[in-house]
C-alpha cells in the first residue's frame, strides 16, 4: 500500500492530534484542574480571610457597644438596692428623722419581701426579679414645752425628713404613704410607710456593691452581747412581783388569793406539781 504524501501528513497529523489529546487528558487537564482548584481554594480563603478581617475589625465597635450596654444595665441595676437589710434601712430612716428633730420613734413594722417576676414576650419567666419590703414607722413630734420635748417639732420637720427619704434614692426608696395623727395635746404623731426595692439578679452584678451606701451597711457601733432568754427574778420590777402566785417549786405555797375564773382550770394542782421532798 502506497501512502501519498497527503495521507502521510494526515497520518502524522492524526498522530500528533492523538498525542495532543493524550497530553491534554493525561497531563494538561489534571494540571489545569489542580491549578483551578488551587485558585478556587485561594479565592475562597481570600474571601474567608476578608470576612474574618471584617469580623475582627468589628470587635472594637462591638466591644464598645457591649460596654455601653453594660453601663446602661449597671445604671439600672444601681437604681435599686442590691439587697434589703431591714435593720440598716430602718436605722437610716430613724437617723433622718432624728436629724430633723424627730428623735422619738414609737413604732416600727416591716413586711416580708414581695417578689415581682417578669414574664417575657415569649411566655418564659426571667431569672431576674425585683423584691420589695414595706417599712412603716411612727414617730412622735414634740410640744416644745414638756421637759424632753424641747424644741417643738411637727409637720414641717416631718416633711423635711420625708423629702430627704424621698430624694436619697428616689427609685429604690419609694414612700408609699404618709399620715399624721393629732393628739390634741400640743404634739402629733407622724406615720410613714416606705417601699424599698432590690434587684434579685440571676447573673453577677456588673458593678460591685457600694458598701458606703447608707442603706446597705450597718454603721452603728456594735452593742455589748449577753442578753438573757427569760427574765430573772432580779430583773422583775418589785411592783410586778405577786405574793400569791403558784410557784411549782415552792416548798410552801402562799395561798389566799382569789384565782381568776380561767386560772383555776389552768393552774396545776400544787400537790401534784410539787416535787417530793427528799427523805
Amino acid at each position, binding site marked *: *500500500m*502506497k*501512502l501519498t*504524501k497527503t495521507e*502521510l*501528513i494526515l497520518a*502524522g497529523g492524526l*498522530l*500528533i492530534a492523538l498525542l495532543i489529546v493524550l*497530553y491534554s487528558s493525561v497531563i*494538561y487537564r489534571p*494540571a489545569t484542574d*489542580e*491549578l483551578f482548584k*488551587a*485558585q478556587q*481554594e*485561594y479565592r475562597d*480563603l*481570600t474571601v474567608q*480571610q476578608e470576612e*474574618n478581617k471584617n469580623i*475582627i475589625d*468589628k*470587635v472594637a465597635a*462591638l466591644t464598645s*457597644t*457591649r460596654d455601653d*450596654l453594660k453601663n*446602661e*444595665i449597671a445604671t*439600672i*441595676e444601681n437604681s*435599686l438596692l442590691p439587697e434589703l437589710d431591714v435593720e440598716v434601712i430602718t436605722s437610716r430612716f430613724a437617723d433622718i428623722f432624728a436629724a430633723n428633730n424627730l428623735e422619738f420613734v414609737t413604732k416600727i413594722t416591716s413586711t416580708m419581701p414581695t417578689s*415581682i417576676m*417578669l414574664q*417575657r*414576650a415569649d411566655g418564659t419567666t*426571667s*431569672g*431576674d*426579679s*425585683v423584691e*420589695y419590703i414595706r417599712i412603716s414607722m411612727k414617730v412622735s413630734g414634740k410640744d416644745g414645752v414638756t421637759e424632753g420635748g424641747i424644741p417643738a417639732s411637727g409637720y414641717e420637720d416631718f*416633711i423635711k425628713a*420625708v423629702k430627704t427619704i*424621698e430624694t436619697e434614692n428616689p*427609685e429604690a426608696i*419609694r*414612700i*408609699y*404613704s*404618709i*399620715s*399624721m*395623727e*393629732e393628739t*390634741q395635746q400640743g404634739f402629733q404623731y407622724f406615720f410613714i410607710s416606705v417601699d424599698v426595692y432590690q434587684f434579685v*439578679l440571676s*447573673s453577677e452584678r456588673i458593678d460591685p456593691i457600694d458598701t458606703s451606701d447608707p442603706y446597705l451597711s450597718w454603721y452603728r457601733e456594735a452593742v455589748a452581747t449577753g442578753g438573757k432568754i427569760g427574765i430573772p427574778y432580779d430583773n422583775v420590777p418589785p411592783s410586778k412581783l405577786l405574793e400569791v402566785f403558784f410557784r411549782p417549786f415552792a416548798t410552801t405555797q402562799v395561798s389566799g388569793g382569789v384565782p381568776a375564773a380561767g386560772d383555776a382550770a389552768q393552774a396545776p394542782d400544787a400537790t401534784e406539781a410539787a416535787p417530793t421532798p427528799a427523805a
Partner: protein
Amino acid sequence: MANTKIELSKKDMNFFSEFSGSSSQVNAIVPYALLILVALVVVGGVVFGFLKIQTAAVRSQIDILNAEINSEENQKDLKEYTDTYNSLAGYNLQYYDVSSLFSNVKNTDKIDSAVMDAVYTNLPVDVFVSDLSYESGKVQLTGTCDSYFTPLSMLANFRAVSLFSNIEILSIEQIDFSASPMPPEEIAAASKFSFDIVCYLKDTYPVVTSRLIDDTASTPLTAVDSQTLGLGEKYEIKNINTYTSENGTVYTVSRILVNNIVLTEQQLATVKQNDLITGITNAATDIKIYYVADGGAQS
C-alpha cells in the same frame, strides 16, 4: 504457473519498492514531524511547567493564607469576636429584663412631697388639720376651722394650682359644744366647724413599649421604654418602621400589639405611613412592636 510466480515475485519487489518509495516520502516528512513533535513536547512541557509553577505559587499563597487564618492571633481575635457577640446577646436580654423590671418599679405608686407642699401653702389661716393621710393618689384632710366657707376656700386654692382632679367633701359640719366640758371663753376661741375632705390626684398610667424580633422566642431588640402619663395625656412612640441593632442589622416592623391586641392591616399601614404610634392614655398601655430582619427573613 510460471506467470503466477513472476507476478508474485514482482509483487514482492513492488512491496519493497512501495516501501522504499514511501520511506523516501517519510524521510522527507520526518524532520518536519519530529520538529513538530519536539515543538509540541517543548510547548507541552513549558505549559505543564508553567501550570505547575502557577499551582505551586497559588499553593504557597494558600499556605500563607491558611497560616494567617489559623494563626493563634487570628483565632484569638475571632474568638474574641464570638465571645463579645455572644456576651452582647446575653447583655441585650439582661438589659431588656432589668429595664422591664425597673419599669414595673418606676410605675408603682409613690407619694410626692411637692403635693404636700402645695397643700400646706394653700391652707387658710384659720384651718387646723388634725388628721392627714396621703396614699395611692389620695390626700385626706380632717380638721377644724372658723367657718363653713374656709374649707371651700381651701379647695378653691387647690383648684387654682390644679392640684387635684377630683375632690370629695365627706363633711363640713358645725361643732356641737353643748356637751363640751370647755368653759365658755374657750368655746368662744375654739374652731366652730370641722371638715373631712378627700382630694384625688390625677390618675397616672404606664405606657411601656418593647421592640422584639418576630420569632418564636420574641427576642428583645433593646430595653423597654417606659413612661408614666396622666389620664387623658397623649402618648407618641416614634421611629416605628425600622430598627437598627447594635451589630448594624436593620429590622423592619412586621406587626404591632397594643395590650395584646394585634393592630389591623389598616391600622398598621397608618402607623407605617406616619412612622408613629399615638394614643390617649386612659389605662396602662403595653405596646409590643415586632420586627423582621430586612428582606423579610425572620432572624
